[in-house]
């Protein structure tokens, strides 16, 4: 029998135990929530319209609000993020100061706490931009039109929050494209834009999708940035206008967990909502992990 030194055994035991602990808590969290929440998810609970008491479920407008906010966010953030990554990887000289500035701005953006994004969304989008729009176009209105929390402002705030995710993932995908491929395209007389559009972007497609999915998942789960920029606690319908307030699954979890009129009665609805939110963000994350794994395997082949 192979003799294992005690030091080796101890190291394996300690580090292995840490991994088991981490994975164990992941399973415990998901298990504890799903076991209680999954049975609640009836079609009526998920797709019904809400009644007077949030504890009765009827999450349709909440889901629609979440989806609408996330879609708007994606529309704003993906073109920005992909373009930034393309500039960094295909246009800017690798060692240039300008690229360094953009890179460090992306890093900073990723490090800014989400609640600060909330403050920024309120101070910039709602009060400043909305205020300017109102004073120019709606001077006659009796109340604020754009200068109030709305799904539009929440989405734009989230778009900036998730921008680094898209940039970093896309740039990583662009970096795995072999130099050969770029040179082949240039040698055939393609302009830089043609190289980007016809070769680089198609080549990096799965990497870019990974970034988009990660960004959507991140954006869909954030609550702090939307608290003051557009989310509302309770309304009976989904938003129909970019200037409407909206309900959001994440915020709904927060409200049900802390402010339900009848805590005991709201428990099932709470677990159900958490499972829905997890279903949304977690399935997206798993998709991203698989996609990323595949695109990396593809890059190696």
């Amino acid at each position, binding site marked *: 029998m192979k003799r294992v*030194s005690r*030091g*080796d055994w*101890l*190291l*394996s035991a300690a*580090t292995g*135990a*840490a*991994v088991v602990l*981490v*994975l164990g808590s*992941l399973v415990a*969290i998901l298990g*504890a*929530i799903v076991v209680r929440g999954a049975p609640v998810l009836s079609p009526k609970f998920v797709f019904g319209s809400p009644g007077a008491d949030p504890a009765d479920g009827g999450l349709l407008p909440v889901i629609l609000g979440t989806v609408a906010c996330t879609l708007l966010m994606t529309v704003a953030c993906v073109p920005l993020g992909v*373009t*930034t990554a*393309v*500039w*960094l990887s295909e246009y800017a000289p690798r060692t240039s100061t300008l690229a360094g*500035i*953009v890179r*460090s*701005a992306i*890093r900073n*953006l990723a*490090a*800014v*706490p*989400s*609640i*600060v994004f*909330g*403050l*920024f969304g*309120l*101070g*910039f989008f709602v*009060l400043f931009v909305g205020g300017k729009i109102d004073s120019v176009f709606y001077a006659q209105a009796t109340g604020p039109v754009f200068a109030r929390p709305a799904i539009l402002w929440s989405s734009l705030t989230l778009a*900036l929050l998730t*921008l680094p995710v898209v940039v970093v993932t896309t740039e990583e995908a662009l970096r795995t494209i072999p130099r050969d491929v770029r040179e082949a395209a240039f040698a055939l007389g393609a*302009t*830089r*834009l043609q190289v980007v559009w016809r070769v680089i972007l198609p080549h990096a497609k799965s990497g870019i999708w990974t970034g988009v999915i990660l960004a959507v998942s991140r954006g869909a*789960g*954030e*609550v*702090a940035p939307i*608290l003051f920029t557009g989310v509302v606690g309770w309304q009976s319908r989904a938003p129909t206008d970019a200037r409407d307030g909206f309900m959001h699954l*994440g915020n709904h979890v927060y409200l049900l*967990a*802390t402010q339900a009129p009848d805590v005991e009665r709201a428990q099932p609805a709470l677990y159900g909502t*958490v499972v829905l*939110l*997890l279903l949304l*963000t*977690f399935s997206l994350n*798993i998709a991203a*992990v698989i996609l990323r794994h595949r695109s990396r395997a593809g890059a190696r082949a």
Partner: protein
Amino acid sequence: MTALARPVRGKPRPSLLGSTATPRWERIVERLIAAVAFVSVAAVLSILAFVAREAAPLFWEGREHLPDLILPRQWAGYDAPAHVWQPVGFPPKHDVVPLLIGTLKITGLAMLVAGPIALLSAVYIAELAPRRVREVVKPAIELFAGIPSVVLGFFSLVFIAHFLERLFGLTYRLNALVAALGLALTIIPVVFTVSEDALRAVPKSLREASAALGARRWQTTLLVVVPAALPGIAAAFVLGFGRAIGETMIVLMASGIAPVVDASPVSSARTVTATIAAELGETARGGEHWRVLFALGVLLFLITWALDRMGASAVARLRRRLHGPEAES
């Protein structure tokens, strides 16, 4: 000899100088691409500017209150000079020290829990795990990062709080430790991922050299690999710390958010982030309370910015250390 020396399919080739294969609109598009890339720079600058814009009047409108932001003061009804955060009160008291204490207490505890666990896991995955195990476990740990913090907040509020109460019979059901354990769940994937990258960046030759000198595996790992990766591991901790300081929903839901000034890990605590989230909604715009909350936002921005810089320079140091001064930054 002319530029038109060789007719191609009957059509003369235009001069090299005269023909532009790249259309003018493409140059404009290139400019646009560069402009878009700078949106992120504009975003960072305007985040600071517009949060600071709401906070700044504090410094010329209510200047006499400025010392009260950080210095203890003898308030009516209190036994001794104290740090008090009672922004809705008679008079309002805006001493941010209790919030800083709460933040440090919770993030410190969270790091104490998450740091070792994440680092040990990273060592296992980077050094010891068979490839097949690594390929499953690494993404699984990263999936942690995909759980929305409001869900972890809820989990802490219900399960962790209950568990700790059963275990220790604590006075305060919701306290710094509950929030810290919830918070640890969000920083483990950060610290894990960055440390694991750092460990894996250590060249194989170092491990081989150590093994060839007769070192056992644990000796190689602890005496060669981990020390070599130390700057990267430091970066992982700094980045995890930054993430913990900025986290909002977990501490909002699970800390009991009471602005307590003490060192006990099981008393309630109120962090900077939770304070902003809890109070801003009903605060009158332009009031002193409003301005202080935005000033706290500026403070958070600056702290996380500084931590991020520290992390970045630690990573750069790691790269130089492992690959020499020539390494590309």
